[in-house]
């Protein structure tokens, strides 16, 4: 790795930290500006009890002080504080718990999308305008245009309720199959289309024609030359795909009752569980920022023509 690349990475890392800090700050103040609070409930508690709770969690202090304490605790102790709703549990523990499932869901979905997408895309390109190509294109168009909550509901109805092949809740490993498929379908379809067009583009290049003319076998052309080069756009899609999977999991986890971080995030907002809102936001934001960075760096690795600055 030369110093130029290293400098670029450091610069991007700095930017990433700045981005996360902006997210923290905006979320913190917007969250406190929204009416309602963590101790608001239909059956109101006494004013004395509420005051004691607020004092206990430091919510009686001025907002700027709370903000300062919060940042300090994160930076110096990596302490995200206690959950105000699930009393006795810390935000870190809840996030770790949810992350276990969500990460499994996301990583498998990403790989599934990548592998199936690249294979289908290549097949479609090599069989251009044949029946297989047309079928693949019709199906992927459908998947790209269907929102995940509809896709999820359809899969649930067909495979869980009618055929009873899978459980309808994500509490067991088997229950994760349908949510993974739901989550993977959109990026898979997108990658298929991306691979197909980029593969067609590469197959039309002069160096492929030269290789063909020199009598290089079809297999070697595809795997040795065409595939690697046609994957560049797919890699650029890696970042947005991860963002999609992270945000998509909010919906999918709800539909399939998967105990992931997406559900924790949504419920923390309705509960005004301030430390939980902050914790999940920071984790999700960091994830997206880091993955975009990784995808940019990989971009460079697969295509030496690209310079990073």
């Amino acid at each position, binding site marked *: 790795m030369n110093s130029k690349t290293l400098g670029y990475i450091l610069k991007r890392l700095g930017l990433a930290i700045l981005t996360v800090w902006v997210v923290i700050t905006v979320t913190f103040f917007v969250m406190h500006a*929204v*009416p*309602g*609070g963590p*101790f*608001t*409930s*239909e*059956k*109101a*508690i*006494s*004013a*004395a*009890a*509420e005051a*004691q*709770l607020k004092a*206990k969690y430091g919510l009686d202090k001025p907002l700027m002080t709370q903000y300062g304490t919060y940042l300090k605790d994160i930076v110096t102790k990596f302490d995200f504080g206690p959950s105000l*709703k*699930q*009393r*006795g*549990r810390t935000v870190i523990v*809840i996030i770790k*718990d*949810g992350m276990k*499932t969500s990460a499994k869901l996301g990583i498998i979905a990403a790989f599934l999308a990548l592998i199936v997408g690249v294979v289908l895309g290549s097949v479609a390109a090599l069989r251009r305008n044949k029946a*297989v190509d047309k079928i693949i294109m019709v199906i992927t168009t459908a998947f790209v245009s269907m929102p995940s909550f509809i896709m999820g*509901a359809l899969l*649930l*109805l067909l495979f*869980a*309720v009618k055929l*009873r*092949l*899978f*459980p*309808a*809740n*994500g*509490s*067991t*490993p*088997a*229950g994760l*199959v349908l949510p993974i498929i739901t989550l993977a379908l959109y990026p898979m379809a997108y990658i298929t289309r991306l691979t197909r067009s980029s593969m067609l583009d590469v197959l039309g290049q002069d160096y492929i024609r030269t290789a063909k003319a020199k009598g290089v076998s079809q297999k070697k052309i595809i795997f040795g030359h065409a595939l690697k080069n046609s994957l560049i756009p797919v890699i650029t899609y890696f970042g947005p795909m991860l963002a999609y999977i992270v945000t998509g999991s909010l919906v999918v986890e*709800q*539909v*399939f*009752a998967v*105990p*992931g971080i997406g*559900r*924790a995030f949504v*419920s923390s907002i*309705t*509960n*005004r569980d301030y430390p939980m809102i902050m914790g999940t936001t920071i984790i999700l934001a960091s994830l997206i920022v880091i993955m975009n960075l990784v995808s940019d760096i990989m971009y460079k690795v697969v295509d030496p023509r690209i310079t990073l600055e």
Partner: protein
Amino acid sequence: MKKMLSMLLVLAMAISMLAGCGKDEADGTSINVCLSSEPDTIDPALNSAVDGATMLAHLFAGLAKWSQDSKGNLAIVPDCAEALPEGVVGADGKVTYTYTLKKGLKWSDGKDLTAKDFEFAWKRAAGDELGADYGYMFEVVDGYPNNLNVKATSDNTLVVVLANSVAYWNELLAFPTYYPVREDVVADEAWATEAKTYVCNGAYTITKWDHNSVIELTKNKNYVNADEVTMGKINFYLSDDANNMLSNFKNGEWLLIDDVPTNEIATLKKDYPTEFVVAGQIGTYYVCWNINEEILPAGSNLKGEAAEAARAEIRAAIGLLYDRNYIVEEIGQAGQVPASSFVAMGMTNPDGTQFYKTAGNNAGFDGYYDVSTGALKSNFDKAVEVLKKYYNWDGSKFTNFPTLTYLYNTSEGHKAIGEYLQSAMATVGITMNLENQEWNTFLNTRKDGQYSIARNGWLADYNDPICFLDMWTTESGNNDVQFGKDGHKNLKMYNLDLTSLGYSTKVVNGTWAETFDVLISTIKGCTDNNKRFEMMHIAEDMLMSTGCIVPLYYYTDLYMVDDSVKGFFSNPLGYKYFMYTTIEK
């Protein structure tokens, strides 16, 4: 192409085999149910939710518990206590109860359970330091909140002193807030969040807790009445998505689900006639007005008390425009009952009759007005007659009624009701806009009185009408109407005469605080149950006379339970009991 198809087939088979592995083997000694999502807490002192209470009823044993006899009647019976004796009334009106605990009580970790654990738990739950939602459940005990008069006089004797006699005391003993906890266990603030630190004394213990996924309860051998428990394992699945619950019920995974999608109710009623259950629930869905909201026409010369008297009459009249039968039959569709009083159906008088049937003027109907379909026309005419006194009537509608805004929390059901109310008022020319807010924001707005008219609802915490009445005192945190606050604070227009009941209280033209607040504290201090109920009727009369509370219907509890489940029951507060169930296919 053929090859691809066969590959797909193999893949599908492999996946479906995987699916088989995850399933629990249903051998009849375990039951899968789903009430709601992960409970906020299952610390008995901190819980205030119905789903949490159901879990706690399986995990803990208080002095008393709910039980169902062979005829299906519910009763409160002793659990940890040997018996539930009558209290002894002292000269000062305070009532002393002495309980003897059963022999051999143990915690789930094998340690002995003593009366001291009850004393500790009650003081902890009631005190301000914990700030529990349901701390006020101990309000009836002498010394509430911070010096609770309860004492363990020996290892198996508990003495508690109530400020006065309380009709529903035994029921409170079965309430989760009254369950025992052990001091060294709860010293760890996170004790009630993991299976391994959770120590309890009831029919079950927690053997597995996958957060946001499932809580597994296994029969507790140390439970004092363990031989009565028939169900070996209960899996509480954690989801709050009604559509997902229904999918799991339909495919046979979950045998009871506590929620169903509103738009499916009609179909489910038809397709699952024996499994779709509509149970009674003590609660009222109502509309509340902000008492300080000006609704008189611009230029009205009414001031002060006279203006408020007029507004009360107007609000009550508008309440007559609504067709409650339409709301329950066309919108609710879940067996709700049109309401003619605020204190809900299910609350009973000392003689066992329904409280709402003896409320109001009872001129040929129950409650405060006639909600039958036959009375629609006369109610409408009556309302128009009253409104004509204050607003201009052009022969078909009122032309100078100020525009109102109806506030509700975002939900399809509440919206549909809002739209109906809007259309009912439009028939007489009153314009009402609809505004919805997200739940937590909504609660805040309503509590602060930043609204003119809003959706509201109240579910009973225990079986006594006072829990519908004491929420309307001036300083109550649930006083959404804003009685006795701001402009209403200084209006001297309410009367209270308790002399016929043997009290010296007689107020003519007093403020809300001088009348209603005094009445509620008199009720709370009253030891004569008949007088107490008479005063509670007076309190409801006062509330209804303001026109600020417009009951629409009494709630019902909807759930689905598989036909194979036998021995299941639920109580009027909506707690569900699985410990005595068996599965018969």
